[in-house]
Protein backbone atom coordinates (compact mmCIF):
# COMPACT_ATOMS: atom_id res chain seq x y z
CA UNK A 1 0.00 0.00 0.00
CA UNK A 2 2.78 2.40 0.89
CA UNK A 3 4.40 4.12 -2.03
CA UNK A 4 1.23 4.42 -4.06
CA UNK A 5 -0.10 7.91 -4.35
CA UNK A 6 -3.84 7.31 -4.19
CA UNK A 7 -4.63 10.94 -4.86
CA UNK A 8 -3.10 10.48 -8.27
CA UNK A 9 -6.02 8.26 -9.25
CA UNK A 10 -8.60 10.85 -8.19
CA UNK A 11 -7.79 12.63 -11.45
CA UNK A 12 -9.82 11.39 -14.43
CA UNK A 13 -6.76 11.48 -16.71
CA UNK A 14 -4.88 9.08 -14.44
CA UNK A 15 -7.85 6.91 -13.61
CA UNK A 16 -8.84 6.33 -17.25
CA UNK A 17 -5.99 3.92 -18.14
CA UNK A 18 -6.10 2.26 -14.71
CA UNK A 19 -9.82 1.49 -15.13
CA UNK A 20 -9.09 0.05 -18.56
CA UNK A 21 -6.56 -2.34 -17.07
CA UNK A 22 -8.93 -3.35 -14.26
CA UNK A 23 -11.92 -4.28 -16.43
CA UNK A 24 -10.73 -7.76 -17.60
CA UNK A 25 -9.90 -8.70 -13.99
CA UNK A 26 -13.59 -8.37 -13.19
CA UNK A 27 -15.20 -9.30 -16.51
CA UNK A 28 -13.46 -12.67 -16.97
CA UNK A 29 -14.10 -14.02 -13.44
CA UNK A 30 -17.70 -12.75 -13.79
CA UNK A 31 -18.20 -14.83 -16.95
CA UNK A 32 -16.68 -17.93 -15.30
CA UNK A 33 -18.80 -17.53 -12.16
CA UNK A 34 -21.99 -17.09 -14.21
CA UNK A 35 -21.32 -20.44 -15.90
CA UNK A 36 -20.47 -22.16 -12.60
CA UNK A 37 -23.43 -20.59 -10.80
CA UNK A 38 -25.90 -21.61 -13.49
CA UNK A 39 -24.44 -25.11 -13.57
CA UNK A 40 -24.83 -25.53 -9.81
CA UNK A 41 -28.26 -23.88 -9.91
CA UNK A 42 -29.70 -26.04 -12.65
CA UNK A 43 -27.82 -29.35 -12.40
CA UNK A 44 -26.69 -29.72 -8.79
CA UNK A 45 -29.40 -27.99 -6.74
CA UNK A 46 -32.41 -30.29 -6.21
CA UNK A 47 -36.01 -29.45 -7.05
CA UNK A 48 -37.69 -27.66 -4.16
CA UNK A 49 -40.36 -29.78 -2.51
CA UNK A 50 -42.77 -26.84 -2.16
CA UNK A 51 -42.10 -24.66 -5.18
CA UNK A 52 -40.95 -27.24 -7.69
CA UNK A 53 -38.52 -25.86 -10.25
CA UNK A 54 -40.01 -22.35 -10.20
CA UNK A 55 -37.70 -21.54 -7.30
CA UNK A 56 -34.71 -21.60 -9.69
CA UNK A 57 -35.66 -18.03 -10.59
CA UNK A 58 -34.22 -16.91 -7.25
CA UNK A 59 -30.67 -17.60 -8.48
CA UNK A 60 -30.99 -14.44 -10.52
CA UNK A 61 -33.77 -12.67 -8.56
CA UNK A 62 -32.01 -12.48 -5.20
CA UNK A 63 -28.62 -11.30 -6.56
CA UNK A 64 -30.38 -8.72 -8.78
CA UNK A 65 -32.38 -7.37 -5.82
CA UNK A 66 -29.34 -7.22 -3.55
CA UNK A 67 -27.18 -5.50 -6.11
CA UNK A 68 -29.94 -3.05 -7.01
CA UNK A 69 -29.97 -1.93 -3.36
CA UNK A 70 -26.22 -1.99 -2.76
CA UNK A 71 -25.49 -0.03 -5.93
CA UNK A 72 -27.92 2.63 -4.79
CA UNK A 73 -26.01 3.06 -1.52
CA UNK A 74 -22.71 3.17 -3.41
CA UNK A 75 -24.14 5.67 -5.89
CA UNK A 76 -25.27 7.94 -3.03
CA UNK A 77 -21.86 7.70 -1.33
CA UNK A 78 -19.97 8.58 -4.52
CA UNK A 79 -22.42 11.38 -5.31
CA UNK A 80 -22.03 12.76 -1.76
CA UNK A 81 -18.21 12.65 -1.93
CA UNK A 82 -18.29 14.29 -5.34
CA UNK A 83 -20.50 17.03 -3.99
CA UNK A 84 -18.76 17.60 -0.66
CA UNK A 85 -15.17 17.53 -1.92
CA UNK A 86 -15.84 18.81 -5.43
CA UNK A 87 -14.37 15.57 -6.81
CA UNK A 88 -15.36 15.20 -10.47
CA UNK A 89 -14.38 11.58 -10.76
CA UNK A 90 -16.50 10.59 -7.78
CA UNK A 91 -19.59 12.24 -9.30
CA UNK A 92 -18.92 10.54 -12.63
CA UNK A 93 -18.74 7.24 -10.77
CA UNK A 94 -22.19 7.90 -9.28
CA UNK A 95 -23.62 8.50 -12.77
CA UNK A 96 -21.91 5.38 -14.12
CA UNK A 97 -23.40 3.28 -11.30
CA UNK A 98 -26.95 4.61 -11.77
CA UNK A 99 -27.65 2.82 -15.07
CA UNK A 100 -26.48 -0.60 -13.86
CA UNK A 101 -28.32 -0.12 -10.56
CA UNK A 102 -31.53 0.70 -12.39
CA UNK A 103 -31.04 -2.32 -14.65
CA UNK A 104 -30.65 -4.71 -11.71
CA UNK A 105 -33.59 -3.20 -9.84
CA UNK A 106 -35.79 -3.57 -12.92
CA UNK A 107 -34.52 -7.13 -13.34
CA UNK A 108 -35.36 -7.97 -9.72
CA UNK A 109 -38.92 -6.67 -10.24
CA UNK A 110 -39.41 -8.60 -13.50
CA UNK A 111 -37.97 -11.88 -12.20
CA UNK A 112 -39.88 -11.45 -8.94
CA UNK A 113 -43.04 -11.08 -10.95
CA UNK A 114 -42.21 -14.17 -13.00
CA UNK A 115 -41.77 -16.04 -9.72
CA UNK A 116 -44.86 -14.55 -8.08
CA UNK A 117 -47.25 -15.60 -10.83
CA UNK A 118 -46.83 -19.38 -10.43
CA UNK A 119 -46.09 -19.23 -6.68
CA UNK A 120 -48.49 -16.59 -5.33
CA UNK A 121 -50.89 -16.63 -8.25
CA UNK A 122 -50.34 -12.97 -9.10
CA UNK A 123 -47.81 -10.92 -11.06
CA UNK A 124 -47.90 -8.04 -8.63
CA UNK A 125 -49.19 -7.06 -5.19
CA UNK A 126 -48.85 -3.70 -3.44
CA UNK A 127 -46.86 -5.35 -0.71
CA UNK A 128 -44.32 -3.31 1.32
CA UNK A 129 -41.26 -4.93 -0.21
CA UNK A 130 -42.48 -4.81 -3.79
CA UNK A 131 -43.67 -1.24 -3.46
CA UNK A 132 -40.44 -0.01 -1.85
CA UNK A 133 -38.43 -1.75 -4.57
CA UNK A 134 -40.56 -0.04 -7.21
CA UNK A 135 -39.79 3.27 -5.46
CA UNK A 136 -36.08 2.38 -5.69
CA UNK A 137 -36.47 1.98 -9.45
CA UNK A 138 -38.20 5.37 -9.63
CA UNK A 139 -35.35 6.95 -7.62
CA UNK A 140 -32.84 5.59 -10.11
CA UNK A 141 -34.94 6.81 -13.04
CA UNK A 142 -35.32 10.20 -11.32
CA UNK A 143 -31.55 10.46 -10.80
CA UNK A 144 -30.80 9.50 -14.43
CA UNK A 145 -33.38 11.84 -15.97
CA UNK A 146 -32.50 14.72 -13.64
CA UNK A 147 -28.86 14.48 -14.67
CA UNK A 148 -29.81 14.17 -18.33
CA UNK A 149 -31.95 17.30 -18.14
CA UNK A 150 -29.16 19.60 -16.90
CA UNK A 151 -26.57 20.66 -19.45
CA UNK A 152 -23.81 21.77 -17.10
CA UNK A 153 -22.21 18.51 -15.82
CA UNK A 154 -21.18 19.90 -12.43
CA UNK A 155 -24.65 21.30 -11.77
CA UNK A 156 -26.13 17.98 -12.88
CA UNK A 157 -23.81 16.21 -10.41
CA UNK A 158 -24.95 18.42 -7.53
CA UNK A 159 -28.64 18.05 -8.31
CA UNK A 160 -28.23 14.29 -8.67
CA UNK A 161 -26.35 14.12 -5.37
CA UNK A 162 -29.23 15.75 -3.47
CA UNK A 163 -31.72 13.28 -4.92
CA UNK A 164 -29.43 10.27 -4.36
CA UNK A 165 -28.73 11.20 -0.72
CA UNK A 166 -32.38 11.86 0.16
CA UNK A 167 -33.44 8.62 -1.54
CA UNK A 168 -31.00 6.48 0.44
CA UNK A 169 -33.60 6.33 3.24
CA UNK A 170 -35.54 3.93 1.01
CA UNK A 171 -32.83 1.24 1.13
CA UNK A 172 -33.24 0.25 4.82
CA UNK A 173 -37.00 0.45 4.27
CA UNK A 174 -36.72 -2.19 1.53
CA UNK A 175 -34.40 -4.31 3.62
CA UNK A 176 -36.51 -4.30 6.79
CA UNK A 177 -39.89 -4.17 5.04
CA UNK A 178 -40.38 -7.90 5.50
CA UNK A 179 -39.91 -7.51 9.26
CA UNK A 180 -41.76 -4.24 9.82
CA UNK A 181 -44.90 -5.05 7.90
CA UNK A 182 -46.87 -8.16 7.20
CA UNK A 183 -45.76 -8.82 3.69
CA UNK A 184 -46.55 -11.49 1.19
CA UNK A 185 -42.87 -11.47 0.31
CA UNK A 186 -40.89 -13.98 2.31
CA UNK A 187 -38.23 -13.02 4.85
CA UNK A 188 -34.51 -12.65 4.23
CA UNK A 189 -32.99 -15.51 2.28
CA UNK A 190 -29.39 -14.70 3.06
CA UNK A 191 -28.77 -14.38 6.77
CA UNK A 192 -25.45 -13.23 8.07
CA UNK A 193 -26.07 -14.86 11.44
CA UNK A 194 -27.87 -18.08 12.11
CA UNK A 195 -28.54 -21.11 10.01
CA UNK A 196 -29.24 -20.72 6.31
CA UNK A 197 -32.83 -21.41 5.42
CA UNK A 198 -32.08 -23.40 2.29
CA UNK A 199 -30.25 -26.52 1.12
CA UNK A 200 -26.46 -26.03 0.70
CA UNK A 201 -26.34 -26.41 -3.13
CA UNK A 202 -29.19 -23.91 -3.49
CA UNK A 203 -27.41 -21.44 -1.24
CA UNK A 204 -24.12 -22.06 -3.06
CA UNK A 205 -25.70 -21.37 -6.47
CA UNK A 206 -27.21 -18.16 -5.19
CA UNK A 207 -23.97 -16.93 -3.62
CA UNK A 208 -21.96 -17.75 -6.76
CA UNK A 209 -24.49 -15.86 -8.88
CA UNK A 210 -24.30 -12.96 -6.41
CA UNK A 211 -20.52 -12.85 -6.78
CA UNK A 212 -20.84 -13.07 -10.58
CA UNK A 213 -23.32 -10.17 -10.64
CA UNK A 214 -21.00 -8.08 -8.44
CA UNK A 215 -18.02 -8.64 -10.70
CA UNK A 216 -20.19 -7.96 -13.75
CA UNK A 217 -21.39 -4.69 -12.18
CA UNK A 218 -17.86 -3.53 -11.41
CA UNK A 219 -16.67 -4.29 -14.95
CA UNK A 220 -19.64 -2.58 -16.60
CA UNK A 221 -19.51 0.46 -14.29
CA UNK A 222 -15.78 0.92 -14.95
CA UNK A 223 -16.37 0.68 -18.70
CA UNK A 224 -19.16 3.25 -18.49
CA UNK A 225 -17.02 5.50 -16.28
CA UNK A 226 -14.34 5.46 -18.97
CA UNK A 227 -16.91 6.59 -21.56
CA UNK A 228 -18.14 9.37 -19.24
CA UNK A 229 -14.57 10.55 -18.62
CA UNK A 230 -13.86 10.69 -22.36
CA UNK A 231 -17.11 12.56 -23.01
CA UNK A 232 -16.55 15.17 -20.36
CA UNK A 233 -12.86 15.68 -20.97
CA UNK A 234 -13.11 15.61 -24.73
CA UNK A 235 -11.52 18.99 -25.07
CA UNK A 236 -8.48 17.89 -23.05
CA UNK A 237 -5.54 16.75 -25.14
CA UNK A 238 -4.96 13.59 -23.12
CA UNK A 239 -8.44 12.29 -24.00
CA UNK A 240 -7.71 12.37 -27.72
CA UNK A 241 -4.46 10.61 -27.03
CA UNK A 242 -6.18 7.96 -24.90
CA UNK A 243 -8.70 7.41 -27.69
CA UNK A 244 -5.84 6.37 -29.92
CA UNK A 245 -4.77 9.36 -31.94
CA UNK A 246 -1.21 10.66 -31.75
CA UNK A 247 -0.80 13.80 -29.72
CA UNK A 248 -0.53 16.85 -31.88
CA UNK A 249 3.01 18.07 -31.89
CA UNK A 250 3.43 21.72 -31.30
CA UNK A 251 4.92 23.28 -34.40
CA UNK A 252 8.06 25.18 -33.62
CA UNK A 253 8.23 28.07 -36.01
CA UNK A 254 7.89 27.71 -39.74
Amino acid at each position, binding site marked *: MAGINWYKYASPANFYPLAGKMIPWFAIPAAILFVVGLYVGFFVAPTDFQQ*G*DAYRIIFIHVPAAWIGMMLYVLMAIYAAIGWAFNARLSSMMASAISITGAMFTFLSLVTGSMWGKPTWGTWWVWDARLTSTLILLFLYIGFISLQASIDDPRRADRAGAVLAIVGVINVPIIYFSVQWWNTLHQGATIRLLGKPTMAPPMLAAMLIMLAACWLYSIAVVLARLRCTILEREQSAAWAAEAAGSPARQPSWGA
Partner: protein
Amino acid sequence: MNWSEFFSMGGYAFYVWGSYLVTLLLMGGEVVLLLRRRKLLRHRTRSSSEAGGK
Protein backbone atom coordinates in the same frame (compact mmCIF):
# COMPACT_ATOMS: atom_id res chain seq x y z
CA MET B 1 -32.93 -36.71 -16.08
CA ASN B 2 -33.50 -36.26 -19.79
CA TRP B 3 -33.36 -32.99 -21.70
CA SER B 4 -37.07 -32.54 -22.43
CA GLU B 5 -37.74 -32.97 -18.74
CA PHE B 6 -35.04 -30.43 -18.03
CA PHE B 7 -36.47 -27.86 -20.43
CA SER B 8 -40.01 -28.31 -19.12
CA MET B 9 -38.83 -27.25 -15.62
CA GLY B 10 -41.61 -29.24 -13.98
CA GLY B 11 -44.22 -27.17 -15.84
CA TYR B 12 -42.64 -23.82 -14.97
CA ALA B 13 -40.70 -23.48 -18.23
CA PHE B 14 -42.28 -20.16 -19.21
CA TYR B 15 -41.48 -18.53 -15.88
CA VAL B 16 -38.00 -19.97 -15.36
CA TRP B 17 -36.71 -19.59 -18.92
CA GLY B 18 -38.56 -16.31 -19.30
CA SER B 19 -36.70 -14.91 -16.28
CA TYR B 20 -33.32 -16.00 -17.58
CA LEU B 21 -34.14 -14.72 -21.07
CA VAL B 22 -34.97 -11.27 -19.67
CA THR B 23 -31.73 -11.38 -17.67
CA LEU B 24 -29.72 -12.28 -20.76
CA LEU B 25 -31.36 -9.53 -22.83
CA LEU B 26 -30.81 -6.85 -20.19
CA MET B 27 -27.21 -7.72 -19.34
CA GLY B 28 -26.27 -8.49 -22.95
CA GLY B 29 -27.99 -5.29 -24.06
CA GLU B 30 -26.09 -3.26 -21.49
CA VAL B 31 -22.76 -4.66 -22.68
CA VAL B 32 -23.60 -4.17 -26.39
CA LEU B 33 -24.74 -0.58 -25.82
CA LEU B 34 -21.56 0.18 -23.86
CA LEU B 35 -19.32 -1.27 -26.56
CA ARG B 36 -21.15 0.76 -29.21
CA ARG B 37 -20.92 3.92 -27.12
CA ARG B 38 -17.20 3.41 -26.65
CA LYS B 39 -16.63 2.79 -30.36
CA LEU B 40 -18.55 5.91 -31.37
CA LEU B 41 -16.81 7.97 -28.72
CA ARG B 42 -13.33 6.89 -29.72
CA HIS B 43 -14.14 7.65 -33.32
CA ARG B 44 -15.48 11.10 -32.46
CA THR B 45 -12.68 12.00 -30.04
CA ARG B 46 -10.08 10.96 -32.58
CA SER B 47 -11.63 12.82 -35.51
CA SER B 48 -12.22 15.98 -33.48
CA SER B 49 -8.58 16.04 -32.44
CA GLU B 50 -7.47 15.50 -36.04
CA ALA B 51 -9.63 18.41 -37.09
CA GLY B 52 -7.56 20.54 -34.77
CA GLY B 53 -9.35 19.97 -31.48
CA LYS B 54 -12.56 21.53 -30.38
